[in-house]
């Protein structure tokens, strides 16, 4: 690990100002950042620990939604009675991720910002445009079973590994932030994560020093909410693909997919096709997909997983 200095922030705007300086980074639970710092893929020179900023509460919003503080742990969010009752999709996705002891430390903001699990990103002997811009992509000609099938670029085919974020995408969550000038803004989750394009190292639309304060969920939308995670082990493994769906009694609904793209993947035309069945909706979701030989299986896997989810919803 490279040497760094450490501070515990007492004020959000001061924290944002400190984080805007080159080499500085926020520290929340630490479960992703410290992991990457140990292998020097992340090498911040200053850490701003945000645990004392008071963003650890879950509160109702005036329009009937729920505001989840950036520092609420994944365990506390998944266990909250309001989340379980009104947004069961979010509880389901969150408890499908990581392990019990990791979820006790992992936070809302840290989970959204966790970095890819592309094996080449982790291997400093391999080229990787995300780790070292301009160095090339080891995964493109390499072993790409886990990697993206849609929305990828010539520069990067990594996926976003979060389960929680896929549910938040289906639920139309909004990311709330404050910047070093003290200005706040609300970023719809659809616009929060970026596609890799030519700059896979830039993963979100956050600006320098911008601090996430909360994620808000709009008014509950009911329906049958199902998160189906397909993985190589029954527990404690990242998704190969995952499907987050909210299905209403008339068969209409919405769907977001994980494990297929650089961001939680949702397409308007797929939502519109939900009542026509899994084949139609999955076809829209993955239209224009460019899988590799190793991960072409994800295309039928998404359709079959969605078909299973729809069958469960009909039986519910």
């Amino acid at each position, binding site marked *: *690990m490279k*040497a*760094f*200095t*450490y501070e*515990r922030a007492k004020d959000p705007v001061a924290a944002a100002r400190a984080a805007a300086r080159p080499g500085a980074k926020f*520290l929340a*639970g*630490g*479960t992703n950042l*410290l*992991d990457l710092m*140990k292998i020097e893929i992340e090498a911040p020179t200053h*850490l701003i*620990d945000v*645990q004392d900023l008071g963003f650890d509460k879950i509160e109702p919003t005036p329009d009937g939604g729920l505001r989840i503080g950036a520092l609420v742990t994944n*365990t506390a969010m*998944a*266990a909250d009675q309001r989340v*379980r*009752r009104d947004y*069961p999709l979010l*509880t*389901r996705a969150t*408890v*499908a991720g*990581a*392990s*019990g*002891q*990791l979820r*006790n*430390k992992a936070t809302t903001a840290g989970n959204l910002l966790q970095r890819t699990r592309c094996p080449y990103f982790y291997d400093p002997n391999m080229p990787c445009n995300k780790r070292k811009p301009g160095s090339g992509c080891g995964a493109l000609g390499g072993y790409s079973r886990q990697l993206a099938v849609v929305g990828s670029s010539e520069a990067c085919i990594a996926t976003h590994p979060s389960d929680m974020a896929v549910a938040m995408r289906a639920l139309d969550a909004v990311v709330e932030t404050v910047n070093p000038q003290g200005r706040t803004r609300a970023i719809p989750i659809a616009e929060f994560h970026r596609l890799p394009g030519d700059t896979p190292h830039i993963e979100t639309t956050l600006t320098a020093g911008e601090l996430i304060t909360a994620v808000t969920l709009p008014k509950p939308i009911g329906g049958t909410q199902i998160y189906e995670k397909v993985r190589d082990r029954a*527990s*404690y493994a990242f998704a190969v693909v995952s499907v987050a769906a909210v299905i209403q009694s008339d068969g209409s609904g919405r769907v977001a997919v994980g494990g297929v793209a650089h961001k939680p993947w949702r397409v308007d035309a797929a939502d519109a096709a939900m009542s026509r069945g899994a084949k139609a909706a999955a076809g829209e979701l993955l239209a224009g997909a460019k899988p590799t030989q190793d991960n072409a299986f994800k295309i039928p896997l998404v359709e079959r997983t969605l078909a299973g989810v729809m069958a469960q919803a009909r039986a519910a």
Partner: protein
Amino acid sequence: MPELPEFETSRRGVLAVGAGGAVVASTPAIAAPSAVTRGAVPSSQVAFRVNGKAQALRLDPRTTLLDALREHLHLTGTKKGCDHGQCGACTVIVNGQRINSCLSLALQHEGDEITTIEGLGTPDNLHPMQAAFVKHDGFQCGYCTPGQICSAVGVLDEIRQGIPSHVQADISQAPQVTNMELRERMSGNICRCGAYSNIAEAMAEVAGAKA
């Protein structure tokens, strides 16, 4: 207190630290290879309680909670396995919740209450979970065991608190102590010897349930 470079701290052998009045044996040379090989960095102070005892340490900020426990406080019961949050050998209980001590900086734990395997019970006065692991052969080589036991204690507490899990059929209900639940909730603790079934039996006995 003036900033001391880590190597100087080591050279002194023992350092009295003001906060909490605790006297703490400092790092032996082998315990801080990064400081030796990469040059001095400023050290920082942290105070927390470990197994009921106040501790104040002056550390390189890079020190994880795991390394603080093992290398600085010489509580070597907590084990370093993968050092990347994947195996669970480093699991300890912080403010009542189990966490991976390898993926946490010691400095993040100012004021925290930390319980390690040494604090759960002693050889003469075992914690019920330790006794159950012995009775049910919940280990073979024993390396992952301190983490397994801390995690197991945390799991039963999480079930008591009603924290939901992936295998629950209905998350609007309180979870039950079933074999499936125990296995799912313990999946962050890997056992190379494969003592999983016996661990689940030990846990079920402590929970007063049939696994």
